[in-house]
């Protein structure tokens, strides 16, 4: 693949420590397009190694609005089914620029291991020194060891070894994985994957592609999300005004995922003045909320916001999915902060109601009055589109301008390959299982 790609797929065998690389062929892209489509093909190809596949979408890291998404495809310890977990913030983009389009991780290592991915090189390194660290300490340690604070870390925490509620962590924050894939990573003795992307993506017809992206950006700018920012507005847009009011006192600022117009992450200050703007003296000020799942349950339980924030931070350091943990606690009758906090270490599933290949961290209810939202089939199809092309899974719900026809057209302009709606339909059907 000459365009919108690094042209390289890595196959990592953790049992032997060997890494093979393959060319990312035009034929594979044309047939499976990208992201979850190609992840699934690689997963099936290497199924005997119980693989975990990391991949970027066709447009990840490009100028298409919302182009943040990377995808992890693996069998969920919670559902027993193959699932596609989202990698938002900067992680998908970093993978795309790392020199690898897809990474297949097979088998299990005998000792704690990490992968170091950069400049088209993938090193399998021992990680014994990281094994006992919590998520935040491990991220800091890797960045210090490699001398680069911009390294993006797909990691796990102490919870991953024993809990099927352990999620993939995106640096310090939860990834939106609701499938327990942190536990799947730990089962391979893989502590983390450190990624740095300094590459370059060529574009087949760059002027036409960029002109169309700029026009598309102009179109989406006037969409239903315009003038709104963060999880407070998102909660209000879902009709959950009480949740928004509950969160508001501790919200500091809102952050977007890479090249994504709507800022869907909000930071809760757990100390100091949330309205303060200068750089704080303290190294840790609170926790980034990347979805509303856990917060909504804690509010429903009647927790104080500060206590809920402390639990969210505890979950982030443990690498525990706070949304799933909150649900398990609620179902088990633990609804006060001390009981929940005390139960986190050692907490595990099962979790009722989890199904489907895409994370319910992206809301299934109507948001900002979008007509189709709440329609499960429509939601699933839009998630498939997001996970194939590498687009923010929430933003595709808010931006009908990112139509399938437009994305198919852009795919052809960006790659010089031929794509069709029929081909996209087939890949969507496959990734939806």
């Amino acid at each position: 693949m000459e365009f919108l790609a690094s042209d390289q797929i890595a196959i990592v065998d953790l049992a032997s420590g060997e890494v093979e690389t393959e060319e990312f062929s035009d034929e594979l892209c044309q047939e499976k397009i990208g992201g979850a489509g190609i992840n699934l093909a690689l997963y099936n190809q290497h199924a005997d190694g119980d693989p975990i596949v990391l991949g970027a979408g066709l447009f990840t890291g490009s100028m298409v609005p919302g182009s943040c998404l990377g995808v992890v495809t693996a069998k969920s310890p919670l559902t027993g089914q193959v699932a596609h977990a989202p990698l938002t913030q900067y992680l998908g983009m970093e993978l795309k620029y790392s020199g690898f389009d897809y990474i297949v991780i097979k088998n299990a290592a005998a000792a704690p291991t990490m992968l170091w991915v950069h400049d088209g090189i993938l090193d399998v390194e021992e990680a014994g020194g990281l094994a006992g660290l919590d998520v935040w300490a491990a991220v800091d340690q890797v960045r210090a060891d490699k001398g680069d604070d911009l390294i993006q870390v797909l990691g796990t925490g102490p919870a991953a070894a024993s809990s099927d509620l352990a999620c993939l962590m995106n640096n310090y924050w939860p990834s939106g994985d609701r499938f327990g894939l942190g536990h799947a990573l730990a089962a391979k003795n893989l502590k983390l994957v450190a990624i740095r992307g300094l590459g370059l993506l060529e574009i087949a017809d760059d002027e036409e592609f960029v002109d169309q992206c700029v026009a598309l950006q102009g179109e989406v700018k006037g969409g239903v999300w315009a003038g709104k920012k963060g999880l407070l507005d998102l909660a209000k847009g879902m009709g959950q005004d009480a949740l928004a009011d509950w969160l508001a006192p501790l919200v500091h600022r809102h952050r977007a995922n890479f090249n994504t117009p709507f800022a869907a992450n909000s930071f809760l200050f757990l100390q100091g003045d949330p309205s303060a703007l200068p750089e704080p003296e303290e190294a840790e000020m609170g926790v980034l909320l990347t979805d509303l799942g856990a917060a909504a349950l804690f509010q429903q339980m009647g927790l104080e916001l500060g206590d809920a924030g402390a639990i969210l931070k505890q979950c982030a350091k443990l690498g525990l999915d706070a949304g799933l943990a909150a649900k398990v606690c609620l179902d088990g009758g633990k609804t006060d902060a001390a009981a929940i906090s005390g139960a986190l270490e050692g907490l595990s599933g099962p979790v009722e109601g989890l199904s489907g290949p895409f994370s319910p961290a992206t809301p299934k209810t109507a948001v900002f009055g979008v007509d189709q939202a709440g329609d499960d089939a429509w939601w699933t199809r839009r998630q498939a589109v997001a996970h194939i092309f590498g687009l923010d899974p929430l933003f595709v719900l808010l931006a009908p301008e990112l139509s399938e026809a437009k994305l198919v057209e852009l795919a052809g302009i960006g790659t010089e390959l031929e794509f069709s709606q029929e081909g996209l339909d087939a890949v969507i059907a496959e990734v939806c299982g």
Partner: protein
Amino acid sequence: MGVKIDPLKCTACMACELACGYHRDDAFALLSSCIVVYRTRDKKDYFGVILKEEEDLVIARPEGLEVKRIGAVEEGGGGGDASAKPMLLREACDLCEDRDDGPLCKQVCPVDAVYLD
């Protein structure tokens, strides 16, 4: 006239950085952008934007703008954090002089944090 940044509108999406990289390389890349989101202080929720102009480094911090002369930064450091380390080696903003529509970073900023003044 020059590119200006409202750091309180900025959401750290890096669309400006990506656009600038394309302007320099005719491809998608981030290494040669003269406008950069600094984003390494996650746990403090502290982020902003750095712009390299011909003579100045403009640091758009949440608490306000800071303008440093390039020579002073070279001698004394203080040009932001790791996100901005190579800034001094990059070309200065040319307002996308080859584009009829003006700076691409301004055009793609989804929240109008980048503007001309």
